[in-house]
């Protein structure tokens, strides 16, 4: 699946996107964040405050129980501040 990172999440993780293939037990957004957090100190720092991380799956806002699957575009970003 394709991961996208925005704003300070992009800064902390150190890239704006990457192609990842999580293991099979990653079935939803919550699983994905748990797994990502274990991928190294940069991810751990970025995801430490889970309330500050919003997720979109295929460009729709998604809750932790939203399913994820190969081919999805999954974006992680802080609460929005436009307007």
């Amino acid at each position, binding site marked *: 699946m394709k991961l996208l990172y925005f704003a300070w999440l992009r800064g902390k993780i150190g890239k704006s996107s990457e192609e990842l293939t999580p293991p099979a037990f990653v079935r939803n957004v919550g699983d994905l964040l748990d797994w990502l957090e274990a991928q190294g100190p940069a991810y751990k720092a970025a995801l430490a405050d889970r309330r500050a991380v919003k997720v*979109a799956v295929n460009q729709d806002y998604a809750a932790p129980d939203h399913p994820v699957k190969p081919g999805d575009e999954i*974006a992680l970003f802080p609460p929005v501040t436009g*307007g």
Partner: protein
Amino acid sequence: MIRVQAEDFDVGAELARLTTGRTDVGGVASFVGVVRASSAAGDLQAMTLEHYPGMTEKRLAEIEAEALSRWSLTGSVIIHRYGRLLPGERIVLVATASSHRQAALESCQFLIDWLKTRAPFWKLEETAAGGQWVEARESDDHAAERWRKP
């Protein structure tokens, strides 16, 4: 009509577009957001707006569709810029036209409130101390909440 662009926009032309050639419009309400020089972080040198190409347009179209379903409007426009902007520069335009003034005024307020909490944009403020991401404000959440349907 929604647009996400780096370039500035012509407010007069955009508003005129909502009335030109028709006679069913009674009022046009609009809001233009502008970069302020002072922020919580100090004196601002510039502000950079990051967005999520694709999702941003999708969410704005959704917010506009919601306004069109809640109010009887003859037209609407949302234009939001991205990229590096200097103090005094325009960031966003929302405008709504209706046969009745109250529908135009309310839906304009609704659009800017929802846009602030739902459209994927992030502001990076540049001050003498460096760049700092703006934190979401609770007051913006409250402003958006009041439009939630029971």
